[in-house]
């Protein structure tokens, strides 16, 4: 059983501009910030907020954290298959949603991952298909 989502991928706003991030953990891309809510947020957020690493970002508090209609809830730690086109002709890779609360914006890439495929200035990669085991 799997669920397929087709939509867009964007990159996660993070340190030093945490306006689009979960409050707290993005302040220094490390695990020492007082706002981190261990163990629920700390490791995961710090991992996600390290823009230099490949990964799928997550945000808390669905459905109000993002454009909820365009996303699906994915349990953190889930492995997902990411494809660029609906016919599955071009697989981008298998990625794990980083540890933390469930995500509603699981197609927020880290900057490192996003910039592999498009300039950060593009903001959005279109027509991404994600297959999630249910």
């Amino acid at each position, binding site marked *: 059983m799997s669920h397929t989502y087709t939509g867009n991928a964007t990159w996660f706003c993070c340190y*030093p501009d945490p306006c689009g991030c979960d409050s707290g953990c993005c302040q220094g891309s490390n695990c020492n910030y007082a706002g981190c809510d261990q163990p629920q947020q700390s490791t995961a957020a710090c991992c996600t907020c390290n823009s230099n690493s490949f990964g799928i970002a997550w945000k808390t508090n669905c459905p109000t954290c993002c454009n909820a209609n365009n996303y699906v809830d994915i349990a953190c730690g889930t492995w997902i298959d990411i494809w660029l086109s609906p016919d599955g002709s071009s697989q981008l890779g298998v990625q794990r949603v980083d540890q933390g609360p469930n995500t509603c914006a699981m197609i927020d890439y880290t900057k490192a991952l996003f910039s592999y495929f498009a*300039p950060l200035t593009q903001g959005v990669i279109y027509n991404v298909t994600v297959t999630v085991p249910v």
Partner: protein
Amino acid sequence: MRRKTFFKRVTVGGAAVLGFLYPGLIKISHVEESTVQASAVAQPNTQPDLNFAGGKVVKKTSDGVVVDGGGTVRAIRISADTAVWKEFDLKPSEVEIQLDDYLDVRGTALPDNTLMAKQMWINIGRWDGIIDTISSTRLVSTNPKSTKSRSIELSSKLEIVKAQDGTPLPNHLSGLTPGNSIGAVGLRLPNGELRATRIWVW
């Protein structure tokens, strides 16, 4: 960029990512101009991308800068061929990088652990929110989660597109109205505002 070209770049890039993430575990079974099929064994995805760096500029050097990405310090080499973005697409000679600027850099990792920059974005920021008010020069948007509002300047090179497919929004700025859900990228300004260069509308 033409769609076909984009797909080609992405698929080839995707294979490269897989190869980086899962060395020895990737089998590329078929390669054509625009198609790469690959299989991968799932592994933790927390590896750093050595060809990417992000951080605050803490030092200028003779051929670049040093950035601190929250504990990870990396020397960045900049050449005349490095593509620089700071609201506009610029050449390195056209922009002076300042201490405390935040750089995102994609390039080639060198054996000495420095990064030769190919593309560099200076103080780029992102925003998601709902439009509260809009004028010809700026808009105010609120993030529904944080209830935080942000004033967003509109760059002279602003693009406005539909989020679904990236096509231009009819009527450009006139097509935006309060209540629209948007995402944006742009230049982070010293006062905390964002000068948007691209807005996508859901």
